[in-house]
């Protein structure tokens, strides 16, 4: 049969977002891939140039709709580096907890997607969503929203963690960790799943690094790289957690790495909850007080006040300069490059999305795969179109 280019998309039930994957096939084997993106390009970078620094936080949420908290935290971290603001430790810990909970929720969404794409295994799919609901409930009592939280603020977070948060989080983590064992058994003991994922879509280490792939996809290739360890930001250097890596760089390893990462994130959240500074949660400061910015006097005063916000001016005008901050998002290395010209609107915001780079490496992954493998491969890199197109 002759080689031909097939279009998978843009209207397709299995492509996880709106894009057009053109693959060159010879019968059933894939020879080349040429993704066409841009269908949900909203111009977030251009929109940012017309907004306040604070007004951009909801837009940052919407940059990655499956893991909004991480993007919003990335944005405020960048602005804080621009303005050289020192965030109080309690706020940093709260952000870390929210970040890791978001990573867990995003990886559970990955479990859902994998179960659906590799073979329509409906029960694990629904179970993963059931556990994700626990996390979304946590986010609801923390921020008020289940999705698109608008929670971090430049200088801290919007409000303190509520009284029931710690107990509910610990219970949710217990449930999730026990269910993780169930998922591992369900998938590892399923021979058809192993048949579908082992040896499929192998990405070699050299190709991955050359194309700029980061995150769990890179770790599955065997490269032990995690921004939380190699360039610790926020308070990750205080915690003890591991970096799961894979061996072969195939689809199965990407699965294993992400499941292990859920466990590691749970570890981090537990440690953070135990060590959170600023005393017990019971000393909750009512919202009215928090809004009127609490002033710090030197380094003392943290033990008495429940401080979650640094002193920032009402209208945020960073000094002219630029900042490039990278974090380890659920999908890899996300970064923001913000240039400020001294006004209250950013001059340029550039967003580096991990899946953007992974997608350009797609043709290396797809060589030798079959057409039926395409949906699992796409889900295996945990694709999220909104951050690709921005």
């Amino acid at each position, binding site marked *: 049969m002759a080689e031909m280019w097939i279009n998978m998309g843009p209207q397709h039930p299995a492509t996880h977002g709106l894009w057009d994957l053109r693959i060159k096939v010879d019968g059933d084997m894939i020879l080349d891939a040429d993704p066409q993106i841009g269908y949900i390009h909203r111009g977030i970078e251009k929109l940012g140039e017309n907004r306040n620094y604070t007004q951009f936080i909801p837009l940052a949420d919407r940059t990655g709709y499956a893991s909004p908290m991480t993007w919003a935290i990335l944005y405020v971290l960048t602005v804080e580096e621009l303005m050289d603001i020192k965030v109080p430790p309690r706020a940093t810990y709260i952000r870390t907890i929210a970040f890791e909970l978001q990573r867990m929720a995003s990886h559970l969404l990955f479990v859902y997607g994998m179960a659906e794409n590799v073979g329509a295994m409906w029960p694990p799919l629904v179970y993963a969503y059931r556990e994700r609901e626990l996390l979304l409930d946590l986010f609801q009592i923390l921020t008020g929203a289940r999705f698109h939280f608008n929670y971090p603020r430049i200088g801290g977070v919007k409000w303190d963690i509520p009284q029931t948060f710690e107990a509910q989080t610990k219970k949710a983590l217990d449930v999730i960790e026990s269910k993780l064992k169930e998922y591992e058994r369900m998938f590892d003991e399923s021979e058809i799943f192993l048949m579908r994922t082992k040896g499929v879509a192998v990405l070699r280490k050299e190709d991955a690094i*050359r194309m700029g792939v980061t995150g769990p996809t890179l770790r599955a290739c065997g490269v032990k790289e995690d921004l939380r360890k190699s360039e610790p930001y926020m308070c990750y250097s205080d915690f003890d957690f591991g970096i799961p890596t894979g061996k072969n760089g195939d689809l199965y390893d990407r699965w294993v790495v992400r499941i292990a990462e859920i466990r590691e994130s749970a570890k981090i959240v537990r440690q953070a909850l135990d060590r959170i500074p600023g005393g017990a949660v019971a000393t909750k400061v009512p919202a009215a007080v928090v809004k009127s910015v609490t002033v710090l006097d030197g380094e003392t005063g943290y033990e008495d006040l429940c401080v979650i916000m640094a002193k920032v001016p009402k209208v945020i005008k960073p000094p002219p300069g630029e900042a490039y901050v990278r974090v380890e998002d659920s999908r890899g290395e996300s970064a923001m490059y913000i240039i400020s010209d001294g006004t209250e609107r950013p001059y340029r915001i550039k967003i580096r999305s991990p899946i*953007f780079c992974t997608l350009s490496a797609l043709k290396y992954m797809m060589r030798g795969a079959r057409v039926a493998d395409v949906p699992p491969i796409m889900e295996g890199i945990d694709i999220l179109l909104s951050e690709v197109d921005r």
Partner: protein
Amino acid sequence: MSAEEVAGEMKKKFPEADVRIPRASRLTASVKKEVLLDVCSFLKDAGFDHLSSIAGVDRAENFEVAYFLWSYEKKILVTLKTAVQKENPRIQSVIKIWEGANWHEREAYDMFGIVFEGHPDLRRLLMPEDFVGHPLRKDFKLPEVE
């Protein structure tokens, strides 16, 4: 090698480059676009094998292209900047050095109109193929809605 050593080597090889160390494990360098490929090859050989991103910026007098490079070994982030003129902006593509630059350069072309010479397939990435104009330029007029 620490950032100072890399900076030292760079200054030796490319004296006109403006190399600075703003803080620990961060290096900023501004180079002319003629020596861009040489600087990039040098940095790649020095161990900077991860191209984080390529950002185009529309400054008042010219375009600026910023390359963010990270070395897994040394754990240093290098910000490399070049200036490109605004009329007929052209610059060498670094795709032969870091293949991941492919899509980043396509996006810079799409958003700013900077042509990367040597790029195998320079076409629009995010905007539709028949779009006219380059959206992230400061003089790009958003279409008015009646």
